[in-house]
C-alpha cells in the first residue's frame, strides 16, 4: 500500500502549548482563589481526560475483536488518544491533595459518628483507594503499551501474526476494562456522595465516556480529512459507521440514564432519592432538564438520518456538541456535591478555564504521536478492505 505521510504543521502543536499554558495559569489562579471549587473542577477535567483516553483504548480493542474493516484506516486516531493514559498517572497527583475537599468519607471524625459510613470503611479508606487507582491506571497502561507496540511494529515488519496477537489481547482486555472502568466511576464519582449507591452507575459512566470518545475520534478524523492528511480513498461513507456508533451510544446512554432514574423514582427510598433531589434544587434543575435535551433529544434528531451520518460537516457539529454534552454530564455528576449547603453561583469563570487543559492535552498528545508514527496502520492486513469500504 503506497502511503505518503504528510506532516502536521508545528502551529497546531504551538496552539496546544499556548492553550495548556493558559489553562495551567488560570487553574493555578483558581486554586489560589477558591481551592475547594478548583478541586471539583479539576476532577471534571481529570474524568474527561480519563474517559476519552481509556475509551479510545476500548474502541481499539473492540474493533480488533469485532473484526471491523471500515475502522482500520482510522485506528491510529484512538491509538493516539489513548496516549493520554500514561499522563493520567501525573494528572491524578493533584487530586490526592484534594481528598479532604472532595470526599466526605475521608473525614474520620464524621465517619466515626456515622454507622453507614463505618460499614463502608473496608472499601472506602484512603490506602485502598490509592491502591485501586494505581492498579487501574497501571493495568490500562500495560495494555496501552502492548496494543500500540504490536500495532507500530506491524508498520515496519508487516507481520500478520501481530494482528492475531492484538485480537487475543482484546479478548483479555475487554472484561478487565469492564471491571476497571466501573471501579474508576464508583471511586471518583459515586463516592463523592458516600451514602448514595446505584448499581448501574458504572455502565452509566461507560456509556457517556463512549460518546465522548467516539465524538473525539470523529472530530479528529474529519479535521484531518478536511486538511488532506488522510488517505484519499477514505470517503464520506467511512464516516457513516462513526456516526452510527455515536447514535447508538446516545440511545444507550439515554436508556441507562432513564433506567437509573426510574428505578430510584419507583423505589422512592430516601437513601437514594436525595441524590436526584440534590440535582433538582435551584439552578441545578435547569442543568438536569438541559442534560436530557443536550445529551439525548438534540443529538438523537441530529444523527438519526442517513445523510446526517455521511455528511462530514454535520458530523463535525454533532461531535463537538457531544463532547460538550459529556462535559456537562460530568459537571452534573460532580458539582452538586460541592453546591450542597452553599450559596454560590452555579457557573463561574472557573468552569470555562479547566476544560482548556483537557483540550490542550489532547491536541498536544495527538500531534506528538502523529509526528512520530504513521497516521494509518500502513501494513495492516485488513487495510485494503478498510479503504475499499462501501455502504
Amino acid at each position: 500500500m503506497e502511503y505518503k505521510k504528510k506532516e502536521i504543521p508545528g502551529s497546531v502543536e504551538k496552539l496546544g502549548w499556548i492553550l495548556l499554558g493558559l489553562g495551567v495559569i488560570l487553574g493555578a489562579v483558581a486554586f489560589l482563589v477558591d481551592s475547594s471549587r478548583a478541586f471539583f473542577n479539576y476532577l471534571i477535567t481529570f474524568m474527561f481526560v480519563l474517559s476519552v483516553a481509556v475509551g479510545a483504548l476500548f474502541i481499539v480493542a473492540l474493533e480488533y475483536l469485532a473484526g471491523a474493516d471500515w475502522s482500520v484506516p482510522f485506528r491510529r486516531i484512538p491509538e493516539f488518544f489513548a496516549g493520554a493514559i500514561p499522563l493520567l498517572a501525573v494528572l491524578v497527583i493533584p487530586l490526592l491533595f484534594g481528598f479532604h475537599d472532595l470526599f466526605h468519607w475521608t473525614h474520620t471524625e464524621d465517619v466515626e459518628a456515622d454507622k453507614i459510613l463505618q460499614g463502608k470503611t473496608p472499601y472506602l479508606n484512603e490506602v485502598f483507594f490509592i491502591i485501586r487507582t494505581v492498579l487501574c491506571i497501571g493495568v490500562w497502561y500495560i495494555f496501552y503499551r502492548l496494543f500500540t507496540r504490536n500495532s507500530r511494529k506491524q508498520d515496519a515488519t508487516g507481520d500478520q501474526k501481530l494482528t492475531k496477537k492484538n485480537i487475543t489481547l482484546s479478548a483479555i482486555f475487554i472484561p478487565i476494562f469492564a471491571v476497571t472502568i466501573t471501579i474508576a466511576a464508583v471511586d471518583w464519582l459515586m463516592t463523592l456522595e458516600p451514602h448514595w449507591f446505584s448499581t448501574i452507575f458504572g455502565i452509566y459512566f461507560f456509556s457517556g465516556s463512549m460518546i465522548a470518545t467516539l465524538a473525539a475520534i470523529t472530530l479528529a478524523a474529519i479535521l484531518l480529512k478536511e486538511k488532506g492528511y488522510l488517505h484519499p480513498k477514505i470517503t464520506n461513507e467511512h464516516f457513516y459507521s462513526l456516526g452510527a456508533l455515536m447514535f447508538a451510544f446516545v440511545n444507550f446512554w439515554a436508556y441507562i440514564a432513564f433506567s437509573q432514574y426510574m428505578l430510584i423514582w419507583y423505589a422512592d427510598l430516601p437513601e437514594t432519592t436525595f441524590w436526584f433531589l440534590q440535582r433538582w434544587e435551584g439552578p441545578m434543575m435547569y442543568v438536569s432538564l438541559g442534560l436530557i435535551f443536550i445529551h439525548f433529544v438534540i443529538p438523537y434528531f441530529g444523527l438519526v438520518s442517513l445523510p446526517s451520518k455521511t455528511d462530514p460537516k454535520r458530523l463535525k457539529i454533532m461531535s463537538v456538541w457531544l463532547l460538550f454534552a459529556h462535559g456537562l454530564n460530568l459537571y452534573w455528576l460532580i458539582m452538586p456535591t460541592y453546591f450542597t449547603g452553599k450559596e454560590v453561583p452555579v457557573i463561574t469563570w472557573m468552569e470555562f478555564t479547566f476544560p482548556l487543559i483537557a483540550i490542550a492535552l489532547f491536541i498536544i498528545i495527538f500531534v506528538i504521536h502523529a509526528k512520530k508514527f504513521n497516521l494509518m496502520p500502513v501494513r495492516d492486513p485488513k487495510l485494503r478492505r478498510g479503504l475499499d469500504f462501501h455502504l
Partner: protein
Amino acid sequence: MVHSQAVTEVIIMNKKLYGYTALFDTPDGIMAAAKKTADDGFTKFDVNTPYPVHGIDKAMKIRPSKLGFITLFFGLLGGALAILFMYWTMSVDYPMVIGGKPFFALPAFGPVTFEVIVLTATLSTVAAMIALFFYLPQNNHPLHDTDYMKTVSSDKYGLCIEAEDPLFDEKKVQTFLSAAGGKNITPVYNPEPVKYPLLQPKFLAVLAIIALSVSGATYFTLNKLMYMTPFNWMSEQEKLTPQRTYWLFEDGYGMRAPVQGSVARGFIPYPFRDQSVLEEGGLANPLLATEEVLTLGKNKYNTFCSPCHGNHGDGDSRLRGQFPNPPSLHTPRAREWSDGQIYHVLTVGQNVMASYEPYTTREERWAIVHYIRALQRAKNASDADIQLVRSDNNAR
C-alpha cells in the same frame, strides 16, 4: 417442451408486457449496467441480486426510501395511543394509588410507551413493505414465479426495465440490454389481473387453515398440554380435598355447609346481640385484672382502639378529621358504665363504631375493658392511688 412453448406463446398474445429482463454474471457487470441504464434516462427499472450489492442504490440513482416516514408516523401514533390509554385507565377511569405514586406517573409509563412505539413501528414497516411490494390489494408481482427470479435468487445478477418507463421501446431496450452485456434477454408479462384477489378460494383456504391450526395449537397447549402431569404417583387420591368437587355428594360440592344450629367447639354465644345498650349489671368481667391480662389489654387497645380513641383514651385520634371524633373515655358517663356495658359496645358496636367481634376474641375484649378501667383510674387518680404508686416504685 415444444408443445408447451407453443401454448405459452398463445397465452402471451393476450397478455400485457411488464418489461424486459437481462442476466449478468458478475457484480461489476450489474453495477456497470445499472449505471448505464440510469445514465441513459431510464427511471422505471429494477435490479435483482442474490445478496445486497454495496453501492447499487447509488449506481441506480434511486432516491432514499420514504418508508422511514411511515415508520415514524406509526411509531409516534403508537406511543401517543399508549400514553393516552394508560392515562385513561390509570388516571381517569379507575385511578388507583400504586406505591404512593401520582395517578399520572409518567416515568412508570416510559417502558410501556417505548415498547409500544417499537411494536407499532416494526409491524407498520413490515405491513407497508408488503403492501408496496405486492401492489396490494393484488397479492402477486409479475416477476414472481419466473425463471428469471429463480436464477437471480441463486447465482446471477438481473436487471429488468419496465414497460411503463417513458423511454421504453421493445426493440431499443433489447439492443440496449445486449449492448450493456446482458444475457438471456427475455420479456416478462403481467399475470392475468384478478378482480378480487383477496377472495380467491385458495387464499381463503390458506387463511382458514392458518386460523384453525393456530387456534387449535393454542387451545391444545394451554388447556391440555400444560395440564399433563409427567407422573402423578399419589398426588391424586379418592378423598375429599378443600376447594374441589367430590363425587359422593349429589350437588358435587366438596366443601359442605355445617348442619343448621351447629356450634364451633369452645364457642360461647352472646345473648344480648339485639340490644343497643346493655342493662346495668347484665354482665360481669370474667377475668381478673392481673398483670398478664392488663398487658394483653394494652396490646389490643393500642392496636384496635388507639387509632380513634387515642393512646390514653382522650379521643385525640391520629385519624382526627377523617371521621367524627370519638368521645373521650374519661367522661363521667363512660366512667359510670359497668364493665359489661363497655364489653357490649366492643362486641356489637355503637353509632359509627363498628363491631370488633371479628378481630378480637372474647378474652381479648374483656382484657381491653380492664385496660380502659386502668386508663380511667390513672387519669382521675385519688391521693391514695398516687401514694400507692409511689410506695410501689420505692419498693422496687
